[in-house]
């Protein structure tokens, strides 16, 4: 009897450890912040989907531009219609790798500062970026945070001269994701 349980147990263990290689969030949040002389503009998006592969150190994010919510309805409309052109470019995505993966012990609680390098695609323009991030572990859950700046000009987003005092040239992006083990189905 004991002998029989053992192989099942081993098989089970292998499955468990392997399935915990990929982590997912469907409700990651990204905050868009523009600081300009006339007004500060903030938009929240808590419908970001992201995968994290802890073995390979790969991360991938995708979100719909329409999921960014603004305080003013007209700002949201202009963001989609005039700047991001969300009908033509509905998604923004990022795919990258943790360059210093060895720093992170995914089996020990704690916060680790890492660097993520990869391709960010916004408004149909892909740019290679390198951003600092914090990976923190507590009770088997993985939390990832990052804050970085992007220049709207680099993504071919035009700001008319009449609103230069309303919209910043550099936007601060804050990312906050709480990952859970990915189960298929």
């Amino acid at each position, binding site marked *: 009897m004991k002998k029989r349980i053992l192989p099942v147990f081993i098989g089970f263990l292998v499955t468990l450890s392997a399935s915990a*290689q990929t982590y997912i969030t469907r409700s990651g949040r990204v905050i868009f912040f523009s600081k300009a002389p006339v007004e500060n503009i903030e938009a*929240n998006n808590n419908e970001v*989907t992201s995968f994290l592969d802890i073995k390979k150190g790969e991360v991938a994010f995708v979100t719909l531009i329409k999921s960014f919510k603004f*305080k003013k*309805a007209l700002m949201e*409309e202009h963001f*989609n219609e005039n700047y991001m052109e969300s009908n033509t470019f509905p998604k923004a*995505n990022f795919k990258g790798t943790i360059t210093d993966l060895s720093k992170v012990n995914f089996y020990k609680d704690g916060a680790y500062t890492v660097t993520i390098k990869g391709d960010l695609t916004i408004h149909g323009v892909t740019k290679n970026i390198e951003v600092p991030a914090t990976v923190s572990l507590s009770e088997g859950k993985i939390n990832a945070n990052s804050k970085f700046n992007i220049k709207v000009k680099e993504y071919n987003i035009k700001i008319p001269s009449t*609103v230069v005092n309303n919209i910043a040239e550099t936007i601060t992006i804050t990312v906050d994701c709480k990952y859970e083990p990915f189960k298929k189905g």
Partner: protein
Amino acid sequence: MRKKLLIITTSFFMATSSFAQDTTDISKMLEDELKANDINKTYYTTATFKTTRLIDGHSVENTAPGVLDVKISHRFGTIGGSNGGAYNFFGLDNATMRLGFDYGITHTLMIGIGRSTSNKTFDAFFKLKILRQSTGKRKMPITLSYVPTIGVISFRDTSLYKFFSSRVNFTHQLIIGRKFTEGLSLQIMPTLVHRNYPVDRGPNDVYAFGIGGRQKLSKRTSFNAEYYYQIPSTKVPGTVNVLSLGFDIETGGHVFQLHITNSSSMTESNFITGNKGSWQKGDILFGFNISRVFNVVKKHTKEW
């Protein structure tokens, strides 16, 4: 022995299947997730038109919830024709206007009030979206709105209007609109105008059919056109159908609408059933609408 073998092979399969994840591509998994998400979500079409008015009449667009839209609309006098010309400064001497307030209650319901120079008319309406154009889980090709308007003529002529009810008219309008592409939106507007006491001795019920649309010229400008056709059997004698051509410019919180039209009125009962100006006779006039939005109620963003 057999049983043992079975267990071992089963566990082996379990192990390999999980090892197979090593080769899975998270970008592809992300795509699959998105596709699954797309099926479960409805995406409503936004910004079919720049503002709630096409030119004189309503567009299928609503004011966002908690947003007040102050509308100042001007029509100058006719450029040509018998009342125009250099003597009347090509119409600038004779301006009429409407001051209006539109307010969004929900995503599907807005209300509005206004006061026009023509017949000193007060008007009030609501606009209810019955269907909303959408893609995703719920696919809807069109937006359908119902707009009932009440107009009250406050012109002081007691010999003409013996009762208060004589001054009242009602307009029922259905607006069927579709944003075909990013730039092109079209709408049709079957309309019924009921006048309690038609001073023009025309019919009480006037049926009309409106057609209109916009073509974006750039991100912030568009060309608009609007035409209201009175069904001949109920047409008010001596009136002319209204054709308006316009140009929208959007700048931040403002929308400027510049147009040329043959109507000096801006409420349905006045411009659909009471217009005398004719394009052929040179009764063309210049007008503009200015729309400015104010966020009255702060949007409750979900705390997370």
